[in-house]
Every structure is written in C-alpha cells, then in structure tokens.
C-alpha cells in the first residue's frame, strides 16, 4: 500500500455493568450479557479472526472493560450462557422446521440457526474462555485492547483522589491478569475527563486516553490540529479527540445507518409474536413475554410494529455493503480535505459503543466486515491505525491541557448529575472517605480483616459504576439501578462498621465474596 493521506482509528467500547446473581437460578438483567455475547462480542470475534486469517489489514482499538472481562471469565455466567445458547439453538432448529414451507421467513430462520451454530463453535474453540480469542488478536497485532475504569466509575464526580487512582490501578492489574501485559491506553468511563486525571494515568504508565471533541477544541493553549492529532497533557500522556462527523454518520436518527428500512427491526421479536405455549420454554421462569432474540421483520419505514415487512437477509447484507462503501467514501473525502489544510497526516478517531454493532444494529458487524475489506482493497487514501501506532509515527505532539468533558448528552456531566440521581453522591463520597481511611488504618491487614477490606473495595467499586446513574436518568430499569446502588453501599457500610469495631462476621464476608466476586485478586492497598 502506498503511504496514505491519513489514518482512521475505530474504537469499540465494549462494556456492560457487572451483573451476576448466583442467589437466583434465573435473573432477567443477566440477559444484557448473554445477548451481548450472541449478538456482538462473538460475531465481532468471528469477523476479526476471519479478516486476520485472510491477511486483510485492519486495526481496531477495543475496550473490554474490567467488568465485562470479569463476566467473560466467570464460570457461573459462562455456564449459564452455554445453557442458554443450547436452548436458543434448539428453538432455531424448531423454527426452521416450522417455517420450511414459508418462503418469506425460512431464509431468516436458517440465518439464526447458522449464527447460533457459529457462537457454539467459538465457545467450543475457546472452551468458554473467549477472552483468549481477543488476546490472540492483540498478540498478533490486529487489535489493541485498552482498559477502562475498574467498574466504569465516573471519575470527574469522585472527590477523593485515592478513589480515582484505585479505579485505574485495579483496572490495570485486572488487565494484566487477562491479557498478560500492561494496558497502553484507557477509555475513561463515559469519555469523562477533568483536570488531574491525566496525572494518575501517567503514574500508572498509561500512554493515551480519549476525550469528546470539545475536550480537545477547548484545550489550553489552542490545539493547532483540532481533533486530527493528539495532544500531550503536560505530564506526557496523549489525548485523542473524538470525531463528530463519522459518529454522526452512524448515529444520527435522521441520516444514520441503523434505521435503514432494509435492516432488522429490533423491537419485533418472536418472544411476543409466537403462540405462548410454543415460546414459553424459551422465556424466563416467570413466563412473561420478552425478547428472545429471534426477529423476522425489517424496519420497513415509519410504520407501526404490526405493519413491518418480512426481513430479507440478502437485501440487508447488500445494504450493509452499500453503507460501508458510503462510510468509506466520506472518510476518504474527509481525510483528503483535512490533509489539504494541515501539515501532517491526520488521524480521525471514531469511538462507538461496541453493542451498537450486532445488538442494536443487527447488521453492524457485517458493516464493519465490509468496511475493513473495502479499506484494504478499494483505496489508498486512508489506513486503519491504533493510537499506539500513530504515536510511533508522530512522537512529537503539541502540549496542552484538555478541557473537562464527556460524551454524554450536552457534552458534560449532567447525565450523571441531575435531579434523578444526584442523591447518590453523598453516599458514594462518604464510602470513598471511609474506604481510604480504613486502608490507611490497616496497611498490613491479614486474614479475615484483609478479606473484609478487600470486599469493602469491591462493594464500593460496584456502587460507583456510572451505569446506575445513567439508568436513573434514562428512566428505564430504574428500580434495578437504585437497588444496586443502595445494596452495594449498605454492604460496604456494614463491612466498614465490622472492621472498625473489630467484630467481623466471617460468614457474612464469605457470602459477599460469593455474590460480588469481581476482581478475585483485588488488593485494597490500591487505595493507598
């Protein structure tokens, strides 16, 4: 390939909050994880493996957040997923039989049968340890896995520096456990940055992070290259800015791709459509109709759910290829334009929620597949790159202080701090204060005291997940988010009081270790 005019850096942020309920045999919110595996993580893994095997050049920077990595390596959850996959595969086979004479729907039924078979193949290949697949791709240089705040804690709204540092330290240690080396980069939860965080990143040896576009545009002093080159924070950590144009092209509800009439309709599912007795074995134990993941209709247009037309896999695939071509055309034009204005090869950074690809936008993974193939074969203007590779090419960058920002609605912190969720902060901050104080008073704790303080750290971190405040704002599943926030703070407080009063209940600690088992080798001294 000739020297390109610029670089495209796709960033997939794969994250789910830690949802694991061993106390129940069947738990609704665990579905987030199981659906993510079938629809996003395993399809992406399959696509990346195929591209690598075929020698097609591609690069993806991918967060696998510590909470998600924890769930992907948890025996209970992966065992439950395997059972679910077996049942869903059984349903897909029944569907092929049921629809064998129905021309409109048979191809879609067969598509699901094949997708589920592919998931089972990958699960077997890695014996349920699918992180190994992503690690292989990183080791071969095709993807760069970055870390995130340990439990997706929203750093700018934490008041104790030690609590911020612990989110980074514990994430870094957990990354090494899964991927065998230290992380080079981090995705700050919700892309939320405020001054001072970069110093902690520097101390932990992290080379780069990302901010929303105005984090760069409002930097001080002015950024010469806008978002098309990284800045170095005064401590030397690089900061890359999110490109709005490419994000808008995919996301916009008006011109974005996922709402195309040919694409699969997310909201019409056989869990609601099929005869109750037929579908009941595939619902949760409560028997309430919910999505099961098999959907036969396409978006069609602005019509009600009962006006949707049958899905045509071939037509949708064709459209995904068209959209990939359109996206590439726009990136090449964008890059040609930018490179005519600036005196270096620009980088365009496009971060997306990974779950957009597959879970919400069913054709998203095939869009990415086509896109990487087209970038490889069809043009010489842009090349895929990771932040590390770009910094190797351009080690000299402007020094400036990025502006506080996030990728939430309106660009700052309001999504996580408003009338629906502001009440959580006095409790979180008190727990941060108590955690730090307890760590300082027990620097060399051993035995049960050590286990108790470690569990305090787990409970605090789980309460800090930005997901709970976000859910309270969006207004869906609020009860669960409140329950999680309150539950973890109460458990934390009880442990704190037991450690403080030197009256630790060993059975209570053991039960919490069983339930909230994230970060098996956590060390509370991360708070020191």
């Amino acid at each position, binding site marked *: 390939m000739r020297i390109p005019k610029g670089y495209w850096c796709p960033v997939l942020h794969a994250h789910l909050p830690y949802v694991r309920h061993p106390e129940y045999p069947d738990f609704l919110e665990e579905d987030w994880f199981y659906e993510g595996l079938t629809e996003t993580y395993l399809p992406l893994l399959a696509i990346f493996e195929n591209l690598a095997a075929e020698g097609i050049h591609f690069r993806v920077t991918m967060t696998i957040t510590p909470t998600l990595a924890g769930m992907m390596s948890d025996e209970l959850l992966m065992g439950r997923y395997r059972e679910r996959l077996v049942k869903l595969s059984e349903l897909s086979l029944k569907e092929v039989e049921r629809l064998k004479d129905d021309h409109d729907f048979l191809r879609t039924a067969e598509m699901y049968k094949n997708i589920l078979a592919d998931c089972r193949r990958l699960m077997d290949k890695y014996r349920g340890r699918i992180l190994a697949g992503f690690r292989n791709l990183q080791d071969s240089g095709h993807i760069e896995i970055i870390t995130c705040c340990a439990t997706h804690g929203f750093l700018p709204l934490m008041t104790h520096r030690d609590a911020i540092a612990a989110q980074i330290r514990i994430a870094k240690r957990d990354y090494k456990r899964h991927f065998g080396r230290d992380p080079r980069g981090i995705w700050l939860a919700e892309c939320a940055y405020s001054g001072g965080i970069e110093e902690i990143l520097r101390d932990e040896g992290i080379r780069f992070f990302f901010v929303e576009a105005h984090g760069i*545009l409002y930097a001080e002093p002015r950024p010469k290259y806008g978002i098309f080159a990284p800045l170095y924070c005064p401590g030397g950590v690089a900061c890359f800015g999110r490109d709005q144009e490419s994000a808008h092209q995919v996301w916009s509800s008006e011109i974005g791709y996922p709402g195309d009439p040919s694409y699969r309709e997310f909201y019409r599912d056989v869990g609601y459509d099929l005869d109750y007795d037929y579908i009941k074995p595939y619902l949760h134990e409560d028997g309430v109709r919910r999505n099961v993941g098999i959907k036969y209709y396409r978006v069609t247009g*602005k019509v009600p*759910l*009962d006006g949707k037309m049958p899905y045509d896999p071939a037509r949708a695939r064709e459209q995904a290829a068209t959209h990939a071509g359109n996206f590439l055309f726009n990136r090449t034009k964008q890059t040609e334009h930018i490179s005519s*204005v600036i005196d270096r090869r620009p980088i365009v950074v496009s971060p997306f929620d990974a779950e957009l690809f597959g879970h919400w936008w069913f054709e998203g993974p095939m869009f990415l597949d086509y896109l990487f193939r087209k970038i490889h074969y069809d043009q010489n203007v842009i090349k895929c790159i990771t932040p590390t590779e770009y910094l190797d090419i351009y080690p000299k960058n402007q020094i400036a202080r990025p502006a506080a920002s996030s990728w939430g609605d309106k660009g700052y912190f309001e999504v996580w701090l408003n009338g629906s969720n*502001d009440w959580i902060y006095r409790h979180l901050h008190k727990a941060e204060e108590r955690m730090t104080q307890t760590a300082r008073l027990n620097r060399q704790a051993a035995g049960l005291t050590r286990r108790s303080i470690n569990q305090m750290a787990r409970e605090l971190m789980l309460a800090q997940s930005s997901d709970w405040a976000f859910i309270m704002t969006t207004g*869906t599943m609020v009860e669960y988010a409140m329950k999680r926030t309150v539950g973890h703070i109460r458990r934390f407080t009880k442990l704190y009081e037991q450690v403080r009063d030197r009256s630790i209940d060993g059975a209570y600690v053991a039960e919490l270790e069983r339930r909230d088992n994230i970060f098996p080798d956590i060390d509370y001294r991360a708070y020191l």
Partner: protein
Amino acid sequence: MVKNPGSLTLTKTQTARTSIPRADKGGLPGGYGDTKIVALPRDPLWIYAYWEINPKDMSATMKKLPPKSRDGAAWILRVHDITGVKFTGSNSVTSFDIFVAPESGSWHINCGRVNRVWCVDIGLSGPDGIFVLAARSNAVPTPRFGISPIVDDKWGIVEKDFYRIMKLSGADDIGAGSFSTARLMLERWKELMSLPSSGTKAGSGK
C-alpha cells in the same frame, strides 16, 4: 462559532428552589452526622452542592450570631467566584447568595458565568448582613467553555486556517453529536409507540 465565554450575566441572588430532603433512599441514611458541604461540577454554567450540618453545629452557628441578629436570620449558600485567588473567606472576586432551608440538603446552582472557579459557603445570614459560616466547600472549577485565546508559539497557525480546522473538527456541533445507543433506541421505541395501532398481537404468527 461558539458562544463568547463570559458573556452571560451574573445573577446576584437566586431564589431557593424547594427540595425535599432525600433521606431514606432504600434504607440509606439521610446523613452521616457530619458538618460539611461538597460542590461538584455539572457543566460550564452549573454546579451542584450538597451539605449536611449536624444539630450541634447548627445551634452553635446560631449562637455565633449576635443576639440581636438571630431574629430573622436565614440560612444561605454564599457562592464565591475564587478564580485566580487564594481564597481566605473574604477575598473572592465576587459572590452571590441563595436562600436555602438547611434540611433541603442539596442545590443545583446556576453560576451565571463560565470559565471560573467556585467555592460555596453555607451559613447563617442575619438581617443586618452579618454572616456566620457553618461549612465551606472544596474549590470547583467548571468545565472550560470556548476556544482558548492562548496561542502556543511553537504550534502557531494562521487564524483563518485555525478556524477552518475547528469547523472540520465539529466546533459548530458541540454537545449535539453525542448520542448514546440507549438514547437512540429509546427515541426509536417512543416513535414506534406513537404510531397508530402499534404493538403486535401475541400469537400473530412469525
């Protein structure tokens, strides 16, 4: 182009927005027996403050007022602009007051100016203007708003080219391009539900 930083006017006094104390959220305590106030940044114009004053400190604060000032004394938040100063309690650039019920526990504050650093005092204000402090918050810089006027000589650029790059970088769409998956899908769901005869009948086939 972005709004001119600092062009917004400063509100002198804000009226208290009644807020019910948020005690007993699922069994969490309403307070921890502390006397403190904490300020958090929300966006370039707004900050959020929450506080707690234990009963002992509440009466101690009242006792610090001269007896003649106690009648008619009111609890206030005094919001100080401490940009560029080492704040001692009396040297802020400017300040404004908000009347609050101490038990309300929290407040979202429109600071009225951008690119400033704020500090919030809570205390009692007598009718004669005497103020007794109960607690002082941390300093809270709000997120920087607007393109910096500072130019780095080593990384200089012609003004016209700089604004061209800003435009290409999306400076005109700040805050508008930040969609999350959840929000996008929620909007689609609402749209579907708003259409006539939406919703499928159970057992309707495929």
